[in-house]
């Protein structure tokens, strides 16, 4: 299994600059790993209004199980993608991402 190199802050910065669209091959490997997390605990965004804000939540064990709010609220989807990237970075590397 591909492991994330926690020293590659350049790839984290690349994602922050552009969360959607073409990415470098090295960043894409990181994203593939992060976005393929298991169903239980998978991050999703909940939107109650037509155009935001977005609340971060995690899926339950099964599709019919309730979701759990994490407490994070975002005004736009770029913010949300970056916040989840940092959460997953910490979980998968064991180290906090030293970038805002």
């Amino acid at each position, binding site marked *: 299994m591909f492991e994330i190199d926690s020293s590659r802050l350049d790839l984290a910065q690349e994602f922050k600059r552009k*969360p*959607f*669209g*073409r*990415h470098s*091959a090295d960043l*894409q490997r990181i*994203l*593939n790993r992060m*976005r*393929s*997390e*298991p*169903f239980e605990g*998978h*991050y*999703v*965004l*909940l*939107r*109650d209004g*037509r*155009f935001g804000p*977005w609340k971060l939540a995690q*899926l339950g064990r099964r*599709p*019919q199980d309730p979701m759990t709010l994490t407490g994070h609220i975002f005004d736009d*989807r770029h913010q*949300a*993608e970056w916040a*989840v990237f940092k959460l997953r970075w910490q979980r998968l590397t064991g180290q906090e991402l030293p970038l805002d």
Partner: protein
Amino acid sequence: MLKIVGYTDRPSARPGEQLDFKVSCEGGANSFDSRIVRLICGDDGPISPGYKVVPVEAKVNGSYPGRQQKIDVGSYLLTQQPVTLHASAGFTLAAIVQGHWVDKEAPQVVLACHDLGHVGSVRGVALGLDRSGAGAVTVGDGRGQITLGTGRPLLPKHWYLLAASYDANDRRLTVIQRPLDRQFGEPEISEGSAVIPFNLPDMTAATLTIGASLLPGLSDRRQSQHHFDGKIEAPAIYAGYLDPTKINHPSWAPIPCIARWDFSRDIAAKIVKDQSGNGHDGELINLPNRAVTGANWHSETTNWRERPDLYGAIHFHSDDLYDMGWATDFTWELPNDLASGIYACELTTKDGGEDILPFFVLPPKGKVTASVAFLASTYTYLAYANSHHGYEDALSEVCYGALLELGPTEQFLKDRRDFGVSLYDRHRDGSGSCYSSWLRPILNTRPKRTIWNFNADLHITDWLQAIGQPYDIITDDRIHAEGVELLQNYRCVIAGTHPEYHSTAMLDAFERYQKDGGRLIYLGGNGFYWRIATNPAWPAAIELRRGEAGTRCYELPPGERYHAFTGEFGGLWRSQGRAPQKMLGVGFVTEGFDASSYYLRLADSFDPRAAFIFDGIGPDDRIGDFGILGGAAGLELDASDPELGTPAHALILASSVEHSNVFLLTPEEMLAGFPGLDAIENAKCRAELVFFETPSGGAVFSTGSIGWASSLSHNGYDNNVSRLTLNVLRRFLDPEPFA
């Protein structure tokens, strides 16, 4: 929480016809308002054209009393004729079953005989599974009830004989389960037996159900419960006691038969005949799966029509839904002078609830009121109806290239399985969904939703309105029913952003239209991809049997890929010799939902035959490097392929570029996996603009991208996507034949 929802009794109508509107106030409001509008644009996003409607003076505009309407979800078989069961003489029940959701921790009924007139505790008998998933029988005398199980949960997706008998002489109740394909460590038979502490009453007006039981004491409506998720075969009920360990097959026992059913007969029918001769025919409720392999199927054939005797099972699901069955709140007789168009009924409540339920108005039969028709992809809208797929599949995010988002509609549907599933979902027991019906609120076929299917198609009607082009609306369901007659008087037909699902009759109609010189503009991606089927017994539904090819969210088991409705082989049209490249010049190659891009002109675009298309567009212009999605080439993309039928003379005018790593080659394009499948490395992952002429003076223009229409409105409709589309439309409406 959606506070009000509704549906019409069918998707399309013509002037003079009636539409029934059925409304439920889910938020508790006791009244609601209705207003009929003509829909122009449904996209109310910050950089979008906005929600645009034209109010319609309609007799049904006004206020109505409101209430929440009930839903009976889950499939089962229900007999109509009252049953007499002399429990004092004993009885025997048997069936072959294959449980698919054994661990759901709820009772599941295979065959029930209950006195429904008795309010309160169960009065009667039910064979099924107990909460542990073991074979079980439940009996009740109306005061108390007992469930007796075998103590051994079934193995999921394995066949068992279940049987239960009651010996009235000593009040002994016995239940057995016998595996038909015994696995290592399984006993030959598992049994439970006990003397019950009360006498079971004789019943003279009981009701037989298969796959669920009914709540007793409801005189005004029907409510099922305790659904069995899985396959049931050859259920039967007998008068008198028979040692259940002596039963070899449920369909025969040396005691009088009360009722037995053979599900391999009349597979397309809604009524299942009782084979006992006692007339206990049953009606299937909520469209369970037929044409599924039975216990005696061992790969002899994959086509149920060749050996229906191997297809004696029905697969029931607790989340099957055909008809909500709601009461009609009002009926609108469409005025004779109502213009063809996409209309909607705006439903609102004082507590802030809103639902906007669309319907499609065609011109009077046999008439056209414009030279161009826009085809509303009603079968595709239906295929996606109330889809849960995105948030029930852990791989969605990596496929989409973005975090999953659940808006109010998705959150509502996640909590409300009783609104049914789409053709993209798996049932709760894990099996793929094969049916979708109109007779329910379809909450993702609405304006003010994601730019997808219906709401994306409204970008095209918005554009037609903006350029002043009169148009008629036609629909998939009406082409299926009426054939080429519906198309033939239009000089040009525009197919929308994602016309993905089509029946044989529809393809035949388009083939005839094209042969006769019809002009077709296809402003979408992943079009004409899957085959669907219909059935007069279930007129509001479509059926899909997804097979071993295609970009798909499940694959049906071997032997279950022929439609029950028609017997036709299901799956991709490409797999059946009718690839979309033949009809449109392009066919599906890739998809991605993170970012959209643009097209660059290719050498063919400078061919004199294409000059009319590029009038006013520079040779190096980026086509569609703008729009609501950020680009005209996005979401799902199609390209040409001569081997699949793109005509040799077709002009490949432009190709999209710079798609992300998320756009991967569709599986049917690969014979084996290989590195380099994404759009950065694989040149096949792109959209193409294609034009070709057809015999008899017709022509085809295809954009090969779902995203195309979302760029039409950019810069006040003054942009090269709008310009190019208008160039094509003007020429396609010119009666001068293409030579």
